[in-house]
């Protein structure tokens, strides 16, 4: 047997941190949706974790691969703040699509490592919001946590290792989505309900989301067992 995985991975998985950050963003900033997106080896923004209203979140996160506020934040490395629905007009069709989903304000902050933008944290509300400097700083700090989680302990991360780390996380997200689909059928849930159940299970058992999802996919863990774990 070979020890391939470096030490940290045993105790830390970026997917879990991304989920935690998305959920904290919602709590701290009273947001409708929040999510963490990273730049993969194909140079495209991939959504790793979303929280809040998941149906709305899918809409806002999935179509910004090639344009939109998140895309611009990633390209410029600068935070982008949209206080009301008029502010979305400058993004043309993408802006209209976001507003049509019901969003009226949004904040995107970069995950920056020196000159490189590794991804963005995106937070949106279904009402207008005039964000204070403190709130923007809070969001930026969450993004900094994400950056550090992604580069882990390497002060000078190798580009290729970083790309592999991102790819590993992206595959983890896919695995989690597959598991959600299975759980949804098992328990006659919606996919969103299945998602909440999986996250709750992982939190209560201190298991990595990826590991729990793998067990579901391998048919070693069913929704009944997930449902049995909860606050005492």
């Amino acid at each position, binding site marked *: 047997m070979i020890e391939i995985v470096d030490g940290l991975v045993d105790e830390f998985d970026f997917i879990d*941190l991304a989920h935690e950050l998305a959920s904290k963003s919602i709590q701290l900033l009273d947001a409708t949706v929040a999510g963490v997106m990273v730049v993969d080896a194909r*140079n495209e923004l991939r959504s790793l974790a979303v929280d809040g209203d998941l149906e709305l979140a899918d809409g806002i996160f999935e179509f910004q691969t090639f344009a939109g506020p998140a895309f611009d934040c990633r390209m410029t490395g600068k935070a982008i703040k949209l206080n009301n629905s008029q502010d979305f007009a400058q993004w043309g069709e993408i802006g209209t699509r976001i507003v049509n989903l019901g969003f009226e304000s949004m904040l995107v902050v970069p995950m920056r490592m020196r000159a490189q933008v590794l991804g963005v944290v995106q937070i949106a509300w279904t009402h207008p919001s005039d964000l204070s400097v*403190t709130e923007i700083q809070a969001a930026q700090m969450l993004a900094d946590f994400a950056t550090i989680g992604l580069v882990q302990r390497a002060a000078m991360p190798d580009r290729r290792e970083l790309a592999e780390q991102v790819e590993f996380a992206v595959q983890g997200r896919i695995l989690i989505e*597959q598991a959600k689909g299975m759980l949804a059928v*098992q328990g006659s849930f919606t996919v969103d309900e299945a998602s909440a159940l999986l996250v709750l299970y992982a939190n209560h058992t201190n298991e990595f989301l990826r590991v729990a999802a793998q067990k579901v996919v391998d048919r070693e863990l069913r929704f009944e067992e997930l449902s049995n774990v909860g606050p005492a």
Partner: protein
Amino acid sequence: LTLPFGAGANVHLATIFSQNFYLVTLIFEISGTLGSTHSVGDSMNDESVNDSRRRFLAALNAVESESFLTRLCVLGEKLVPADSVVIVAPAGETIISPIAASNQLGFDVANLELDLGEGPSLEVIKTGKPMRFADLPTQLAPIAPLFANRAQSLGVAAVFSFPIQVGGIRLGALTLLKSEEGELGDSENASAIALNDLCADAILLLQSGLPMETFPDLLQGSDLHQPKIHQATGIIAQSLECSMSVALALLRARAFRLDMSLKEYCALVVSQGGQNVL
């Protein structure tokens, strides 16, 4: 929201992220470098993975073979370039089986792994992570001594192996063999990633039973990054009690017959919770 900023804020957030407490010490170590510069450089690969993918797709018809995966291997050998390219599929816990190679060397090396029960493709399939051995004697020998030794005697000096997977669907490994030691250069690496993506797409298409003539078009428009595709895969795998890869193959075949994109059809499956869709 009343967060005190400055050092206190870190402590405050640290309590929020108690599970990741060690990050707080890290933030002090690294925070000086976060956002400290105004020139935003670009990207990891300057879009070269996408360029490589286009290069592969454009050259697809120049290679003749009845096996689509062999065509990809032959193209990989030329375009990455490598001395041999081999694709192996998992066949049980510790067994792999070579399914395509650009030449005999690829088959020989894959069979070596099969015979010895150790080697890079096996590790990749087990861990789901890429393995890079730029120099066999120093990097691979400590891990897989028998394999490293025999592979060297076949003239292999470096091995790069990548997982072919879609989340929980472990399709196999793509392994590049080189007769000269040394890391892959940036463009070689980008080509390997592009080839790896194409292998995943192509194996899934083959499993869907679609005619090979349709592959080039379907490969152009492939996007396996939509969450609904993977949710729908789980829904079908559970409903029909089939494997995840069969489920995805069924979805693809059904979408094709309905003249819908995979993404559109999967969104439909998710919205109907898997009822009456296949």
